[in-house]
């Protein structure tokens, strides 16, 4: 039996990763008629390829591997009665009216437009590639993004190379380095441009130290050389300003370079639709219902802001579903004099960008450098939080009470997140 596609839906969810699945399940549990569309062959987004444990500690109170976490959410989606359409790409979402959007769907079985009362956009992120981080040199085989290497190894069972250099020491880079080492490849190093590792200490210990993988801090890969296939990479040391230090070139022999240089929210469809994009997050500007600046279009997960924890992505999915339900029930999210939430000293980004003061709200923020004994101040809301340690790799999540947001309405009409030492 194929999935019914035609006709009008209460909610169409674009993307079937953890954020989309949580959104679709929650919306259906709230009694809405939901269609979820994903271009992949199976549900789960990037989770089926993330075979390490570390998923769901907060959301499911149990530590699972990526595929297991995906399976749990997939059964919830099925039990909730969500219609799922796989191998279906959404190239465009069209504004028809305040109460109606047109979602274009391209798939082997169905191509056309599905009308929706509300859209939840959960299309995840794309990986940055070598040219975006300035790795020049020859165009050769053997250069992969971390996700590509992971998919080859952990979905198709193919080892991409034997002598591997990993670029970027975020959690993803370190986890991929460990997988190569476990499968018998030699990992010649993990190169990091910053003076500290990008990911969690846990991963420095269990992924690098456990396997004697060298971590090269304050270095960057400037080029890749080879004929046909990678033969070597050229590294340089950088100073505090991240500028190359002349005369520090070294060559490293390797047959594979894996680039793990971060993710970028996939927002083309939203941008075309006219949604305002926040340069700090790379995702859309949203209010505390996770509604974008296009009424009736909501965003969640990595398409909204890059999440290091799947728990947060899934939680945003649920919030977006609740927002969509309110939109449908009341004919819109009531306009209000929004309070702006923005990053200040020591903070790189904050979400959501607009707060109503009508409800308590989870705010997510990322700092721009590691700080021990940190003091997080939400200036304007009169709130201070002490945190033993904050790091750029770990999103900070704080609940702000409605009353605290309302305080800012009498003041400067904004809440500024700042992080200090001590």
């Amino acid at each position, binding site marked *: 039996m194929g999935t019914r596609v035609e006709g009008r839906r209460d909610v169409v969810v674009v993307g079937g990763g953890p954020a989309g699945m949580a959104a679709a399940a929650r919306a259906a549990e709230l009694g809405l008629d939901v269609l979820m569309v994903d271009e992949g062959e199976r549900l789960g987004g990037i989770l089926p390829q993330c075979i390490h444990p570390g998923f769901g500690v907060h959301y499911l109170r149990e530590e699972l591997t990526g595929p297991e976490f995906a399976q749990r959410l997939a059964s919830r989606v099925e039990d909730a009665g969500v219609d799922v359409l796989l191998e279906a790409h959404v190239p465009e979402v069209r504004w028809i009216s305040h109460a109606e959007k047109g979602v274009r769907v391209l798939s082997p079985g169905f191509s056309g437009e599905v009308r929706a009362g509300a859209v939840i956009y959960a299309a995840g992120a794309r990986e940055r590639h070598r040219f975006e981080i300035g790795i020049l040199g020859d165009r050769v085989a053997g250069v992969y993004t971390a996700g590509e290497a992971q998919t080859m190894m*952990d979905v198709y069972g193919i080892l991409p190379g034997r002598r591997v250099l990993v670029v970027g020491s975020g959690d993803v880079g370190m986890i991929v380095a460990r997988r190569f080492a476990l499968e018998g490849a030699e990992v010649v190093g993990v190169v990091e441009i910053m003076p500290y590792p990008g990911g969690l200490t846990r991963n420095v*210990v269990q992924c690098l130290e456990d396997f004697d993988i060298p971590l090269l801090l304050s270095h960057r890969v400037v080029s890749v050389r080879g004929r046909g296939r990678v033969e070597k990479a050229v590294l340089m040391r950088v100073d505090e300003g991240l500028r190359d230090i002349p005369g520090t070139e070294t060559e490293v022999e390797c047959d594979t370079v894996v680039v793990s240089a971060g993710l970028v929210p996939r927002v083309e469809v939203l941008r075309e639709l006219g949604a305002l994009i926040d340069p700090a997050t790379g995702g859309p500007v949203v209010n505390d219902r996770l509604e974008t600046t296009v009424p009736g279009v909501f965003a969640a997960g990595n398409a909204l802001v890059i999440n290091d924890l799947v728990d947060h992505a899934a939680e945003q999915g649920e919030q977006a579903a609740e927002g969509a339900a309110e939109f449908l029930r009341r004919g819109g999210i009531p306009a209000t004099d929004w309070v702006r939430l923005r990053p200040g000293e020591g903070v790189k980004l904050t979400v959501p960008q607009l707060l109503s003061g009508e409800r308590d709200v989870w705010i997510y923020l990322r700092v721009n450098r590691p700080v021990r004994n940190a003091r997080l101040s939400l200036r304007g809301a009169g709130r201070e939080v002490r945190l033993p340690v904050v790091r750029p790799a770990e999103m900070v999540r704080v609940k702000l009470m409605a009353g605290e947001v309302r305080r800012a309405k009498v003041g400067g009409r904004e809440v500024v997140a700042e992080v200090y030492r001590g």
Partner: protein
Amino acid sequence: MTGRGKVRRLTCIVCPLGCEIEVRLDRGPGGDVRVLEVRGATCPRGREWAAQEVTDPRRVVITVVPVRGGDPPTVSVKTDRPIPKSRIPEFMRALAGLEVEAPVRVGQVLAKDVLDLANVVATRESRSMGRSFGERP
């Protein structure tokens, strides 16, 4: 740290704090490692972890196993309990020849008591090829 024994420095992995822990240890009469003192941990869980980590470090092992006639052509697996870190390479070699038949369900035991250390359990499903997506096995 002063006194008898050898000192090992560790970065705690129990929580995001990442305390720098020092463990002083020596060897008992039977050659077994004994913990004399743990310093630098700010909680009891950290102290426990550090003691375990220097005497008998263990890890859950994750990898993939090929599935004959399966879609996708592998399943991801994990050990059902942590195994001694020093035996991970040997454990991986023992799994190198393992191949299973489709279909595989999540939670299915694919190899029992490997090296008498742990069972190997599937964490992802693989369907029999030729079955269309969305169809229930």
